[in-house]
């Protein structure tokens, strides 16, 4: 998964195609997912929505949250309606009618609408190969009608039609592996996502939108009402679901599996289950069973998958990290060649400016002034444009930085767990301010507003490695381990 968490919030559209004012519960993960998804879907879409929470909460006559063309008809037929809309647009385009631009038809339905009652319609539409994107908003039950069990309800969860009781655990079968079933239709793009990893989710939407044919994304959406958890736990629970392996994030591109986030060790499922009322009744041995099964399923998935290449690994090895001011004054070695090589790799495409700057920074640990001049002339864009991008994102540094780059996360989750104290402690230990570099070029200290690991907070990231649950006491030892 891209470690772009630092800039993505700035790249994301400020437009709200899914307008506020709808009636979703507080902390609704589905509404959050739809809001984010819509930002990436853009304007040239037709959304076909199944009956369910997202339809009911956002479309009450005479109001609507939908600013893109939107249609709801029934509970189980979304993929079929999408088939018809897609075919209609295609036929009309051939005959010179209808919208002149390319329009993507996007079906959206809950887990019930998708994996149960609308399963046949989905399978038919996937197999026929219509050009459409189907997004399943998986909150693991029929929430709109009051938390009834669906085939996406996980083992051990208590619902109103599969309640836990003296003689029942609640759901006693394993969650239907719908993404795998969809992938078995041999469609070009299948992915799982979660709004807790929204940059990952949006990059998957972007890929799905580029497909001409069927694409499918299943979005795990925390439902505080149905999962019986606190309404401020939505993001954290989404992360725990992913990090415990309960809901792994992956893509299946033309049949090839790729784990989006490869976890060498999974967090215990217990942590995830204990945070939710729907699992409260589970005795220890059932939790152990879930742990065993999750481990097994995850191992299976890992075996199937390539691991997503971190973009950093694709970048050139560090060319030269300067270690003193004198060295910089003397001129950096091979600067022109390195920059030209990077430009060539991105085919001198100005649209890829950010990636180009990232690679240069990876090579020198900062953006040398001369490199930016070279980028401007190489891409044939004004230097001011290069500077405006370089200075806009906090992740780029125009000043030389130390061998070890420390990021202290001051995001809300880390902040409430004492991140400010940590920052102060590191400042004192190194005798530098945030943004500063030690005279021996050993450390540079920076603060960021979120590194996308809220469940681990407070987090200190050094050279891209996360150190979670940090305390001021542990700081000295941590710094010592970096030379």
């Amino acid at each position, binding site marked *: 998964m891209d470690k772009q968490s630092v800039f993505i919030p700035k790249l994301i559209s400020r437009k709200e195609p899914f307008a506020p004012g709808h009636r979703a519960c507080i902390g609704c993960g589905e509404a959050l997912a739809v809001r984010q998804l819509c930002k990436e879907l853009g304007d040239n879409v037709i959304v076909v929505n199944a009956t369910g929470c997202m339809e009911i909460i956002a479309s009450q006559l005479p109001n609507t949250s939908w600013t893109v063309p939107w249609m709801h*008809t029934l509970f189980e037929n979304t993929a079929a309606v999408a088939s018809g809309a897609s075919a209609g647009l295609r036929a009309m385009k051939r005959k010179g009618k209808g919208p002149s631009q390319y329009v993507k038809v996007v079906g959206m339905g809950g887990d019930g609408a998708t994996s149960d009652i609308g399963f046949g319609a989905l399978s038919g539409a996937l197999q026929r190969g219509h050009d459409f994107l189907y997004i399943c908003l998986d909150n693991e039950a029929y929430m709109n009608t009051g938390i009834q069990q669906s085939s996406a309800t996980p083992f051990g969860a208590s619902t109103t039609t599969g309640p836990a009781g003296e003689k029942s655990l609640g759901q006693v079968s394993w969650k239907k592996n719908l993404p795998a079933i969809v992938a078995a239709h041999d469609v070009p793009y299948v992915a799982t996502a979660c709004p807790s990893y929204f940059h990952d989710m949006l990059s998957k939407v972007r890929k799905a939108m580029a497909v001409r044919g069927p694409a499918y994304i299943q979005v795990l959406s925390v439902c505080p009402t149905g999962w019986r958890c606190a309404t401020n736990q939505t993001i954290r629970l989404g992360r725990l679901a992913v990090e415990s392996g309960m809901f792994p994030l992956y893509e299946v591109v033309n049949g090839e599996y790729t784990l989006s986030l490869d976890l060498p060790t999974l967090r215990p499922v217990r942590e995830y289950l204990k945070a939710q009322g729907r699992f409260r009744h589970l005795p220890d041995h059932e939790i152990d069973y879930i742990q065993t099964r999750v481990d097994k399923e995850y191992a299976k998935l890992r075996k199937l998958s390539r691991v997503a290449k971190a973009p950093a690994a694709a970048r050139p090895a560090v060319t030269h990290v300067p270690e003193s001011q004198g060295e910089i004054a003397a001129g950096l070695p091979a600067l022109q060649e390195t920059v030209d090589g990077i430009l060539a790799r991105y085919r001198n495409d100005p649209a890829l400016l950010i990636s180009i700057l990232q690679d240069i920074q990876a090579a020198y640990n900062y953006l040398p002034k001369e490199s930016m001049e070279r980028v401007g002339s190489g891409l044939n864009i004004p230097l001011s444009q290069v500077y405006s991008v370089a200075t806009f994102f906090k992740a780029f540094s125009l000043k030389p930085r130390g061998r070890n780059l420390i990021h202290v996360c001051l995001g809300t989750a880390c902040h409430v767990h004492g991140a400010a104290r940590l920052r102060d402690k590191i400042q004192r230990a190194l005798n530098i301010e945030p943004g500063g570099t030690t005279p021996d070029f050993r450390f540079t200290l920076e603060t960021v507003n979120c590194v996308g690991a809220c469940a681990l907070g407070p987090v200190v990231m050094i050279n891209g490695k996360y150190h979670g649950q940090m305390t001021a006491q542990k700081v000295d030892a941590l710094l010592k381990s970096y030379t």
Partner: protein
Amino acid sequence: MAEETRVGTEVSLAVGEIVRMVNTDVIAAYPITPQTHIVEHLAELVADGKLDADFITIESEHSALSACLGSAAVGARTFTATAGQGLELMHEVLFVASAMRLPIVMAVANRALSSPLNVWGDHSDVMAARDAGWIQIFTENGQEVVDTMLCAFRMAEDRRVLLPVMVNIDGFHLSHMIEPMFLPSQKEVDAFVPPNHYPFPLDPNKPVAMGDFAPPIIYTEAKWSQEINIEHSAPVIREIWGEFATQFGRTYRPVESYRAEGAKTLLLTMGSFSETAMTAVDKMRAAGIDIGLIRIRLWRPFPFAEFREAAKGADTLIVLDRAISFGVGGPVAAEARSALYPMEKRPRVVSFVGGLGGRDITVAGFEEIVKRGKEIAAHGSPREFEIFGVRE
């Protein structure tokens, strides 16, 4: 003057020819006897490049009509066809198509319903769908099917109407007949059926939201406007039939009478059996029996005024239904009774059910029905309705 050509062909294929000539954009259909010849012919026309349409080989009738919703909503001209079980599987979707005012044209090759399984014709399927808000028309012969199909696209897509239209064609008894028919020329079709301009399509250049959620405070108003809408479609339907008569010289009315003048006993039929009934009427008239025939062509919206006008003056109205509303009787008879009730002097309605599951009723059969009907009118019956020709 009409430039039609006279052809002898199967009625199902003629349906396909009209769908081709109006340059339909999308067909989503699922095979079921006796509708199959219609959709197979269309698939062939598309495969041969004679019709530039997307033919969706969909996985069920529920999805077939659902796909039509999507297609009609983006503004594409849309057709489907089904029968019997297929229409029942579409049931839920039927109501959405009309309430969302999507101009879909559907041919129904009327068929009996399971169980027991029966693939032959009767009106059980459409009678179970009569409250779905569609314009519903019954046809009697091949020519009428061709003409009604042509008019159906006009009616559905007229801006004042914007409703789905169901063309009922008796399964086998009509759908599989090879008959001589006049088929219009392409020029005539183009002159009669303008391109579809759905006024509120799903289009990113002008976003609309369709199919919202309506709480009690507004649902009644939504349904009332739907009712007004279908009531207001009646004059437009008559106007389109009028235009059709001007251009093609064949006249269609919501209710037709045949030799009903002065008759004290009238027979009421719908669909292809009417042709046999007409022959029976001729025969009985020749024998001096007092009888006439009325046929309801426009079943929805129900043509109250025309129906009362056609029935007035008679003492007895013998209704033949090809479906049973279980525990009640013939659905057409029930509606006829309720339509006649406000009249000061109204005929007595005698209800027969017959022709179920493809069982034929011959001319002699109709003669028997009339005879027994007159007896019941004079002396009553132990039953609310009788089944013609049943073996007990």
